[in-house]
């Protein structure tokens, strides 16, 4: 089996910490994967909002490149990129005429045969079988597992976890010793791509997510998406200003939490790059 990774634009830029933790975990568990050669941006929200064909062509090129490299499975740590890739694969499978048009646009052959894994699927499949024996510092904290929107919806296409009260991330966290709290905001939207153009909306929505997590006694919010992390972490000053309060709860990537549990240092998993201080480790 040949594995590829599609880091996406966030992991190489504003979510550098996430990238570091993913690669650190892969190294610790002896997993190898190669970046999809010459990968391009998946188009994220902007493409599907403005141009349907473009929103399918950009992900299709990525999948075609992966196929060309002989990759059987691609790991996609960014939930938004994951969503775009799976949806594109689904749309092109459903509509052969559309598929032919897109192949023409990207000037490449595309068969739609790659397996696409989000970060939790990757962890479940390749890390949790060997996890227990490697735990040195159990993550004995109460956590609010925040899935965001695109990991679980639209559930009929992603076929990953149940859309209401999903549990896969909660289960992974409890395997490293954490206690997930019952968290109704786990799939409520943080405001997504409006971070820059409507920061007020992001502040409002992300604030509610953070407030509920703190209210339920969580020590940290666990995320698996760089967009969610950015809105809950980088935007904290705006959120605090909007709600006229000081929310202190740190936001940690699931890969970072696992990294800490198996004894990696905070620096190794990128914790020092956060905006909100992480004083648990």
């Amino acid at each position: 089996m040949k594995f590829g990774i599609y880091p996406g634009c966030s992991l190489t830029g504003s979510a550098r910490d996430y990238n570091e933790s993913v690669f650190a975990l892969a190294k610790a568990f002896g997993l190898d994967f190669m970046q999809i050669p010459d990968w391009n941006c998946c188009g994220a929200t902007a493409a599907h909002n403005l141009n349907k064909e473009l929103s399918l062509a950009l992900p299709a090129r990525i999948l075609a490149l992966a196929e060309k490299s002989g990759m059987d499975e691609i790991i996609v740590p960014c939930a938004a990129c994951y969503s775009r890739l799976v949806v594109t694969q689904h749309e092109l499978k459903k509509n052969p005429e559309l598929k032919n048009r897109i192949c023409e646009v990207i000037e490449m052959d595309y068969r739609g045969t790659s397996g696409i894994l989000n970060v939790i699927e990757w962890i479940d499949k390749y890390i949790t079988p060997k996890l227990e024996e490697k735990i040195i510092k159990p993550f004995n904290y109460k956590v609010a597992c925040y899935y965001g929107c695109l990991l679980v919806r639209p559930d009929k296409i992603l076929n990953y976890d149940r859309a209401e009260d999903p549990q896969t991330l909660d289960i992974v966290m409890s395997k490293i010793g954490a206690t997930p709290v019952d968290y109704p905001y786990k799939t409520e939207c943080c405001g997504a791509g409006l971070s820059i153009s409507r920061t007020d909306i992001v502040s409002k929505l992300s604030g509610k997510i953070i407030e509920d997590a703190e209210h339920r006694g969580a020590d940290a919010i666990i995320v698996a998406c760089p967009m969610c992390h950015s809105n809950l972490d980088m935007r904290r000053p705006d959120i605090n200003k909007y709600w006229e309060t000081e929310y202190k709860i740190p936001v940690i990537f699931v890969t970072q939490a696992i990294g800490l549990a198996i004894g990696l240092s905070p620096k190794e998993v990128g914790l020092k790059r956060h905006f909100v201080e992480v004083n648990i480790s």
Partner: protein
Amino acid sequence: MARIGVFVCHCGENISATVDCGKVAETIGKLKHVAYSTEYKYMCSDPGQTLIKDAIKEYNLTGVVVSACSPRMHEPTFRKACAEGGLNPFLCEMANLREHCSWVHEKNELTTEKAIDIVRTQVEKVKLNSALQPIKVPVTKTAMVIGGGIAGIQSALDIANTGHKVIMIERSPSIGGHMSQLSETFPTLDCSQCILTPRMVEVAQHPNITLYTYAEVESVEGFIGNFKVKVRKKAKSLDEKTCTGCGLCTTKCPQKKIPNEFEQGMGMRPAIYIPFPQAVPNRPVIDREHCTYYIKGKCKICEIVCPTKAIRFDQPDEILELEIGAIVVATGFDIKHSDFFPEYGYGKYKDIIDGLQFERLASASGPTSGAILRPSDGQVPKNIVFIACAGSRDPAKGIAYCSKICCMYTAKHAMLYKHKVHEGKAHVFYMDIRSAGKNYEEFVRRAIEEDYVNYIRGRVSTIFERDGKLIVKGVDTLLGAQPVEIVADMVVLATAGVASSGAEDLAQKLHVSYDAHKFFAEAHPKLKPVETNTAGIFLAGACQNPKDIPDSVSQASGAAVKVAALFSQSELTREPLVAVVNRTAPPMYSTCIGCFMCQSVCPYQAIEREDFKNRDGKIVKSVAKINEGLCQGCGTCVALCRSKSIDLYGYSNNQVYAEVMALLNEY
């Protein structure tokens, strides 16, 4: 010499819009052996039938082909007309020009050609028809009512009052059904048990009714007028005749924490229990799955304290074999529970309950003696939200239909809450209000205008718990889809009505049709709401579709009169279109070789063994024999028989061959 009469019906415009009936009549009229051929606008009408009767006499017809609609519509009509015209009714066939031709094709020459072909096949067939005589079977004048809810009770009483015997089977320890769980009924707010229990007692005391509770149907064989039903009387673990129903055992039983089915899980019961104080029969049963004696072999306290020594731990189940003439199915319905809703917490929030649970709270004999209290902490809810259409009218959840009763009982619940908690606030999230019965609309208006229940049009997207309260996120579509958030103490879901558990199994045992939702199928949605497609089995109540008490009672009485009509005849006549295994002179007796493969494929268990003995009493040959009382004429055995020893009256090999050859040959 065959002399066939052919009558081509226009069926108004149903056939004539696409088929040239005149041409069909004319072409058929030219065929050999067709003595008379004509067209008419409505053959099923009185003048139409008279046309047949007159033609039979005038042209000395030996066979009649009515080319019209499906025989399922009017075969009996035309056979009767022939009989009245002096021709054996089984010498009449129908050619289906409507469902098989005019309704499925466009108007053109090919359609008319096809119509002509269809008529020709029936003309060739009818030349080979025999003048059959109907088969007579006796009728057992005992009815069985399956289900002891209000529909079953009404049906049983009605049949019993016509003078016939009724056996009622109910699978729970007492009759009464869901109606016995209700606190008050709409639109009068009558106490439900007060109006029900007199009927229950009547059933128990009626000389014509034999009641078996804690009993289920095991198997059903036979046919209308002649069913053989096996009933399993589950062991109650006590002698019903010795037991006085004093109830001492139920107070002494140490196992007290079993979720009470009657209280919909809102209360507990012991292992030996009477479901509710007014139970009929008023005898406890032992729940063997939870009783310490059956699990560990210890305890036996009930046996020790029983004043009449009525406990029988080793009592086995009893199988009764009953001869029944007609069956009324009144097995009722169930409702979905709060765990059916992912967006409302998958059932993990204690203060989100369903309609039946609310009934038990409101009921004076319920777990809270009629006080509306939160299941989580026993406090009185000051702000309560009712959600209508919870699960119903929801294709995404697999329930596209409307459950009919929820709009009414939601209004009732809101009113009952307001009457008990004067300072409380009640909100109802609804999509539409369906209050079509007598005094129903006025009832709902009372809730809104007199009790100030806040009706909000919109559905609720999600509910979650925070600090012991329930956050309800809904919308007001009449205010332009303005989001509405209510912090509630309690939420009552008006959940979808669904088929009773075990409905599919029972339908299979009875050979009765059911739909995708496991509701039993009526024979015709408009005109036969209480009959099924299985002769002799009738429907009453919510097992057919969710409905309220007046409709259940009406339907039950309707089913009862169908049973009474059946029993008013001394014997039943059956269509003689059955299979027959040939018989010849001894020593052959039949070309049947006695392989009995037919017996293994017959869906109606209608094939028996006939032994032929010689003078010494030794069996020399065993051959198959069709029981004409059971045979439904499906033809499976005919097709299967390797020696071609079986034929079918009305659809014989020769007849079918003639139809095929008619299609293949020129005319």
